[in-house]
């Protein structure tokens, strides 16, 4: 039986992680390669890197990080943030990432999904979606709207419609981020996650709102997500991957055992 995946997300700015402030032991809290190794050994199933470097000129720094990560961990990892062109995708994939995630660039230019899927295979292309609850209307029948620029710009696109379109264009997976839940640590947006996951037949990673293991249980069971993204709940040391996974196992959710790396 397929395991549900637990995926830590690392925000990287100009080659340094921006959230890892409370790591103990010998981990360089700002070094994404060190943090990737830590999570790999701790039993993470996959890792997501989100490049928040503002300047496009400094993208080479991220490519260097990707290359080093690929030499260090032997599980899949994806890179998102600032991916705008086929060349951006190629750089990241050749450096060793398993997948690339496109978000705003895909909303502004949906063709990029199809081009990426054709060039590198559907399994390489993750459609990142930032979504806000706006209430049902003629234009937004699901009640969830696509936003970009961190939620500041409403795009007038229905989230469910966009997810279906992304799948049809060739995305192999969806990373579904609720802007409403993001940063709250009050739990994932279950209604949204279930809606997308049950109506689109590619895997869905739930993102935004994780604060405790119970939240992962909810989104992986009731929310029907295939994977759950976590950030601060493990970055700051409040929980471990092992602790989360043993909790989920007790609750009857199938996850990969964390002892796998040793």
């Amino acid at each position, binding site marked *: *039986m*397929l*395991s*549900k*995946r637990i995926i830590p997300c690392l925000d990287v700015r100009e080659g340094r992680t921006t959230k890892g402030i409370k790591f103990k032991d010998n981990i360089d809290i700002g070094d994404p390669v060190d943090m990737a190794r830590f999570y*790999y050994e701790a039993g993470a*199933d996959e890792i997501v890197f989100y490049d928040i470097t503002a300047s496009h000129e400094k993208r080479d720094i991220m490519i260097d990080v990707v290359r080093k990560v*690929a*030499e260090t961990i*032997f*599980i*899949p990892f994806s890179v998102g943030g600032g991916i705008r062109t086929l060349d951006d995708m190629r750089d990241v*994939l*050749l450096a*060793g990432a*398993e997948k690339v995630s496109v978000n705003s660039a895909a909303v502004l230019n949906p063709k990029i999904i199809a081009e990426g899927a054709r060039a*590198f*295979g*559907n*399994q*390489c292309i993750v459609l990142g979606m930032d979504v806000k609850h706006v209430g049902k209307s003629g234009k937004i029948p699901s009640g969830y709207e696509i936003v970009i620029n961190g939620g500041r710009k409403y795009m007038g696109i229905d989230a469910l419609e966009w997810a279906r379109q992304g799948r049809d264009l060739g995305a*192999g*997976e969806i990373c579904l981020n609720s802007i409403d839940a993001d940063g709250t640590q009050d739990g994932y947006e279950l209604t949204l996650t279930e809606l997308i996951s*049950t109506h689109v*037949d*590619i*895997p869905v990673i739930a993102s935004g709102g994780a604060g405790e293991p119970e939240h992962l249980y909810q989104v992986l069971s009731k929310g*029907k997500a*295939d*994977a759950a993204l976590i950030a601060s709940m493990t970055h700051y040391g409040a929980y471990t991957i092992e602790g989360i996974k043993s909790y989920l196992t007790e609750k009857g959710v199938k996850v*990969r*055992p964390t*002892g*796998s*790396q*040793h």
Partner: protein
Amino acid sequence: MIAIIDYDAGNLTSVARALSHIGVENIVTNNIRQIEAAERIVFPGVGAAGSAMESLKRLGLDNAIKDAFDRGKPILGICLGSQIILSYSEENQTSCLGLMDGNVRGFSAEFQKAEFQKSGVSGLKIPHMGWNQIRRRSDHAVLSGLRDTDEFYFVHSFFPYPEKKINIIAVTQYGIEFPSVIGMKNMVAMQFHPEKSGRPGLQILRNFCKWEP
């Protein structure tokens, strides 16, 4: 020296990196002489069967692989490489290498079959993406030292289906039970990615590098 066959089918550098990590000399190549000279061959690949076979033929690698197989050289197929060693793929209706009797089937068609619709689990996503276990049907040196609870990283919509049961070394459950490790003689192939499967995956690569079929 291990030759990783380069036929424009996806990210081959990850296999190279994993082999280097376990201290095994390797080269990513489409050069027939280098393939002939290699002691072992890894045949990886992601993508579609149709374009993969086209590339192999264009580069003359189809014969190079058959040759290596006939000469008894250890061959490891990964993902798409575990599929196109069979005779035929339902994906793009493609004639494949035919090193092993059998065909390549798709989850989509399997899930639409009447018997599955009646009793199977609904809502299964395609591709089958993520970590899953394997259940061994027979022992194989390449799988030695693994635990029953070990999981491996899969990402695929099609799977190999050898004609002879004896060629199925391990199976995996995803709605249906499908062959996930297959092999015969000096060839072993897996649908999952050992190079992306953490410790047990690296163990498989180590085993392959020592395997004397």
